[in-house]
């Protein structure tokens, strides 16, 4: 059997882009995936006359042809032809508890600031300052994220001094320092859930950049769910003479003299000059390598980290249109508390305290996503997988139905929109579902939790050391340097493949 330049394990967002990038750069590439579909969580599933989006809420950093974000640039480079729809407005956030509020936030910096001033008089000045800082972060990011292995921090600092100044400080602390009023902060906190780090812990550079990116560049969804993106990226791999084998489990990464040399599938070893794993290191070092082969730094890093959160989603196909039901928002965040630390803490246990829920109505972004006269809603909650450790097979259905019922009740009561009697199809995904399809430990969907020493900045600064844990073995995906999320995983796949291509080019020169 032939030897590949690059073997990619796992066809999640990171692995797909890594494989397509390597192939497009002329490297012979083999992509191996255990499931029979590409994409990991970036897929779709059908129930009756509905095709559901399993996981994507809003693709960030896409932008317009005139002002393309990093993801659009990447997709253009890969030659994808996926039609995207822009989500209308930024988000609505409903605090349903005491001192509650209901804020419908638009996209566009000016509109967003105006709306906040209307809701929280006196917030304009501080929020304008926030946008200046967030925008600086966004520009700094745009500059270094494509080549994070070779950053001149001093040059970045001279160009973007505020970015460096505020970078590692917690988001909430910076908002306090800017004198952003509490209620405005509450409204500006909602996106913590996309990375799973609460505002007290979340470094300003990333969270500030993320909010500004969504507000300024908007958010996008593909026409036929994430499966379309995954299929299109796979097509780029095939068009560039790459191979993709599905239903194929890698049992072991083959290590010789401390170096990764190939993978074992079935009874056969397939050799590759470089191996890229779109698999969380905990799984690679725990299950896919002989204990004696595991590099010490990699093992210690995995032990030092905390697995990220998993998710709980309720997918609803409704037999009425959004107009008939009175649904007006694409994305609604609902909770009794607006305190992201409280919201985060509640994800550690499976009880009613964990009431932070995001409800999306896909039709508002893409009216053609379901048949005429119907609509698609999906609710998302975060849970640490460990909060499901006690669930047994015989009570599993009951447990998930109970939480789904709470989600429906909560949405109806917060918005006044009645959906219960319009349910034509329902499916529920839990940490078990993610463990089943993604095979991630405890069903995590967010890689590793972002301890302050393990967020985007720290991971970026350590990118070369992390990449050198074992010669010829590399990682990408949701546990990568940009943390979890679609855009982050795509970018990490791109960066890893480029780093690998550079190393292969050096080997050629040495020969």
């Amino acid at each position, binding site marked *: 059997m032939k030897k590949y330049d690059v073997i990619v394990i796992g066809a999640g967002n990171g692995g797909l882009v890594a494989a397509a990038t390597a192939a497009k750069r002329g490297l012979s590439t083999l992509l191996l995936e255990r499931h*029979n*579909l590409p994409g990991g969580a970036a897929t*779709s*599933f*059908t*129930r*009756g006359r509905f095709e559901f989006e399993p996981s994507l809420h809003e693709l960030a950093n896409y932008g317009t042809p005139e002002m393309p974000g990093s993801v659009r640039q990447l997709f253009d480079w890969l030659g994808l032809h996926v039609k995207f729809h822009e989500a209308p407005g930024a988000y609505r956030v409903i605090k349903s508890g005491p001192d509650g509020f209901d804020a419908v936030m638009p996209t566009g910096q000016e509109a967003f600031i105006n709306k906040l001033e209307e809701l929280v008089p006196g917030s304009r000045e501080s929020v304008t300052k926030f946008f200046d800082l967030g925008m600086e972060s966004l520009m700094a990011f745009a500059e270094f994220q494509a080549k994070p292995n070779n950053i001149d*921090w*001093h040059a970045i*600092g*001279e160009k973007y*001094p505020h970015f460096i*100044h505020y970078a*590692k400080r917690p988001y909430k602390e910076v908002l306090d320092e800017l004198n952003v009023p509490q209620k405005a902060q509450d409204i500006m906190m909602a996106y913590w859930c996309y990375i799973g780090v609460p505002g007290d812990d979340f470094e300003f550079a990333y969270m500030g950049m993320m909010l500004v990116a969504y507000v300024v560049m908007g958010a996008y969804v593909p026409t*036929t*769910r994430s499966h*379309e993106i995954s299929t*299109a990226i796979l097509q780029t791999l095939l068009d560039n003479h790459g*191979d993709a*084998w*599905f*239903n194929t489990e890698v049992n072991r990464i083959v290590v010789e003299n401390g170096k990764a040399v190939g993978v074992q*599938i*079935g*009874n*056969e070893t397939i050799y590759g000059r470089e191996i890229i794993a779109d698999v969380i290191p*905990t799984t690679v*070092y*725990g299950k896919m390598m002989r204990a004696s082969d*595991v590099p*010490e*730094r990699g*093992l*210690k*890093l995995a*032990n*030092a980290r905390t697995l990220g959160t998993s998710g709980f989603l309720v997918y609803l*196909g409704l*037999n009425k249109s959004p107009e008939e039901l009175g649904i007006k928002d694409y994305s609604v965040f609902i909770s009794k508390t607006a305190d992201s630390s409280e919201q985060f803490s509640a994800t550690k246990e499976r009880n009613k305290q964990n009431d932070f829920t995001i409800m999306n109505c896909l039709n508002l972004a893409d009216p053609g996503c379901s048949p005429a006269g119907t609509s698609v809603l999906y609710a998302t909650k975060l849970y640490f*997988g460990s909060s*499901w*450790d006690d669930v047994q*097979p*015989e009570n*599993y259905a009951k447990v998930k139905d109970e939480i789904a*019922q709470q989600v429906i009740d909560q949405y109806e009561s917060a918005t006044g929109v009645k959906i219960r009697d319009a*349910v*034509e199809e*329902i499916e529920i995904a839990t940490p*078990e579902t993610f*463990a*089943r399809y993604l*095979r991630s430990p405890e069903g995590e969907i967010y890689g590793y939790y972002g*301890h*302050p*020493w*393990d967020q985007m*900045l720290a991971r970026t*600064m*350590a990118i070369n050391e992390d990449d050198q844990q074992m010669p010829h073995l590399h990682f990408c995906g949701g546990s990568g340097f940009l943390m979890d999320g679609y855009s982050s995983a795509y970018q990490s796949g791109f960066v890893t493949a480029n780093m690998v291509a550079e190393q292969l080019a050096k080997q050629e020169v040495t020969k």
Partner: protein
Amino acid sequence: MSDLTLQQDLQGLKSLKNERNAAIDAASTRPLPKTFPVNELASKLHPESQFLKIKQVIKHSADERSFVLEPDTEKGTQHLAYFRAGQYISFRLKIGNSYVTRPYAIRSAPADALKDQYIITIKRVKNGFVTSFIFDNWAVGTPVEASAPAGNLYFEPLRDQKNIVGLAGGSGITPFYSLASAIADGTEHVKLTILYGSRQHDHILLAPEFSKILSKTNDVKLINVLSDDDIDGFEHGFITAELIQKYAPKTPYSIFICGPEAMYEFMDKEVKKLNLPAGRIRHELSGNYGSPYHETDYPADSRDKVYQLTVKTRDHEQIISAQSNESILVAMERAGITAPSLCRSGECGVCRSRLISGKVFSPEIIDGRRVADSEYGYIHTCASFPISDVSIEVPVHDLADQFG
């Protein structure tokens, strides 16, 4: 900002990396866990394979048998997977040169699975390839392999009404038997009225077993509908809209349909007359789709042809023949190719494969593909019929011995 501030800020940033290194240095070198509780739950609920053994064979009549299954612990299945009443398991059989799958509803109650027992009931199909094999070969002690429980014909309280009207034909009664058992033992909380269509009185499956369930609960009702026999105490004719209305509760209800394709097509027209809201009618074809010729959009000049089918799996290629009235999956099975499949009704997507060239016909009724799959040239082999020479790429079967 001043240069000094920048220097300080850069130092501050670099300290993050030191913190990270300190966290790594302080960490343990203990081996990482190989598995986690949630992953264990996933493998209990959805094992990749279930290795089973026949514990008992119950002969209901010459052509009707139940098989009681238990885990084959020697082969690695310690316990049977729990399921929701109405789900099926797909058996994986090696018959002669062919590797084939067949989905059969688990007709025993979910509670029995906790005691490591499934029962399936099979009606022998005249000249049937698989049922004949099963009747000739399955005896006490025979090892068999099956999938995890699958399928969506189960009661979902957030979607379905509290009254279910089950419309069953032939061996399509089996998922309702499981649901009825689950109602009787308190696992499911729903009322069930079954209209069960058979041709003749002696074709009624599991009649004595049903009587036992009916004696235990008032929440299950069974009405036998005989098309050929006219006997007192039985409805005569077909399951029509009028008949459903006669027996359905006055409160809102959901309809579940399970039976052969011909019955399904007839029922489809009848239930439409009831004008139920979308979502109140659920069905499962259970692998019973036949030939595509009767579909109105079937291209007539493709009828009764034999085409060339090129099957690529990894770096291996094989050319076989494929009849126009049989699915591409069946063509591969005939040729001894081990290809993935599960539901055999176009729904589950396990047989998803890539169409490299050529044309196939995918009947709308069983075309459960994702939209992007249709656009990018993927097919479900169980629901695709060749209408030209065809070349496809099929993923290796996940559970087959991958390299022989």
